[in-house]
């Protein structure tokens, strides 16, 4: 027991402390449970209302997943395009600079108005938001070649296609893994914010409805589920990143 508990506390004391502080704060401040539910109340609400939570979660996750895949393909595609042409790469540097210097999330209301309040809009928004990290990291990764390797390929008379598939793409794998990790977090955030702002469907809309009905347990339940899923996704993508570094780095 001790062998299991010690590493667990060593790795997770920060988050445990946060949950304990929440519970203690509610108990000590004597706040009404309706105003500020305890973490255990929220878990109970999730457990007893699974039929409410699960469909909303499914919608949000599907939107985030489709958006992530679409944005990733688009970003990688454009990254390869700029890899093939230095002029295109130079002209697209403003996009790269904008992604790192400007809060891209603020584009969501504009995109919501451009595409209209339809069911496809959330997916379209997540595609565009996840496009940015995929494009920035893939175009940087395709150029991060091991020293001398490009010369070797040139001497051996490799075609452009061959250089791309055998050298540039494998060299870009660690960067693509980073893009996936950042993109996954971005996609879920974008899907939730879009659903919240448009009040359409999914966890974001559920949270908006719970907020206007002052149903704090429901709102916090949505928060807790998203938090748990994002943490899992983050830890998973960290694994992928380690694997990509070990295999291709």
């Amino acid at each position, binding site marked *: 027991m001790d062998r299991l508990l010690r590493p667990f506390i060593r790795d997770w004391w920060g988050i445990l402390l946060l949950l304990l502080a929440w519970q203690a704060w509610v108990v000590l401040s004597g706040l009404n449970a309706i105003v500020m539910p305890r973490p255990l109340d929220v878990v109970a609400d999730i457990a007893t209302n699974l039929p409410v939570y699960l469909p909303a979660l499914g919608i949000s996750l599907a939107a985030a997943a489709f958006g992530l895949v679409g944005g990733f393909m688009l970003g990688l595609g454009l990254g390869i395009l700029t890899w093939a042409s230095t002029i295109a790469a130079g002209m697209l540097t*403003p996009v790269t600079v904008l992604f790192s210097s400007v809060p891209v999330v603020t584009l969501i209301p504009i995109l919501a108005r451009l595409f209209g309040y339809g069911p496809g809009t959330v997916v379209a928004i997540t595609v565009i938001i996840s496009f940015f990290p995929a494009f920035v990291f893939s175009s940087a990764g395709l150029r991060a070649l091991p020293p001398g390797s490009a010369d070797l390929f040139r001497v051996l008379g490799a075609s452009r296609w061959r250089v791309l598939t055998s050298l540039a793409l494998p060299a870009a794998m660690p960067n693509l893994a980073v893009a996936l990790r950042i993109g996954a977090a971005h996609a879920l955030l974008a899907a939730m914010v879009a659903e919240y702002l448009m009040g359409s469907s999914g966890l974001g809309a559920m949270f908006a409805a719970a907020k206007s009905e002052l149903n704090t347990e429901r709102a916090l339940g949505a928060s807790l589920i998203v938090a748990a899923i994002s943490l899992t996704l983050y830890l998973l993508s960290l694994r992928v990143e380690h694997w990509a570094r070990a295999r291709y780095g």
Partner: protein
Amino acid sequence: MRLARDPRVLGVLGTLVLCLAWEGIGASGLGGFTWPPLSRVLAMLADPDRWDLFGRAAGSTLASAVVGYIFGTLAGVALAMLTHFLPRLAPGADRLAAGMHAIPTVALAPVFLILLPADSTPPTLAGIGVAFLVYVAAAAGLRAASAAHRDLFQVLGAHPSARLLRLDLPAGLPSIATGLRLAVPAALIGAVIGEWFGAPRGLGVLIVNGMQNFQIVLLWSAVLLVALISLTAYLIAGAIERAVHARFR
């Protein structure tokens, strides 16, 4: 032809193409009526009658972002110093920071809406985004001093606080400065998303109102203003970063 390959020339060219495309799509009506031409957006920002509105909103958002930026930086550096002196706490602190970062800000917003008055949600969300980036940069920076220097301090019997002030902190400043640059857009994202969750004023409020009331030009103007503020602050932070790198490396 050499001039045409200069990355700066290509970057300016790319920006021009982006602006022209924005103007052209808007003026031709290709993007529908929710895509205004750039000239109309700029005209609204340049209209002195609007300066009062934009000025108050931008001031409020900027104040939230700055407060969050300062407290987030202090929290990030403090946590990094704590794990620097007590390395046993490092894995848990890493998880806490990564966890807070991986969880979409939307998911945390309800918790703070309940805990705090409405106008302190934007600075809090800004602070959380900043704290993670600064913590990661500071934790890496404090480890950057060379082993030989560290041994010297050890042999001369330096007090741990003297070692921190005279060796680890100066050696870590370049990394911290990089983190501070990357944290600029994070502070603005936090401030704007915090405002979407019900702050009384700010650019985020203008954006959501513009979206919901079909004030399309106002919506685009407010988003452009956020982007311009972020870009300016990012460039200033970049200049500071270069000065720190020149002095401490």
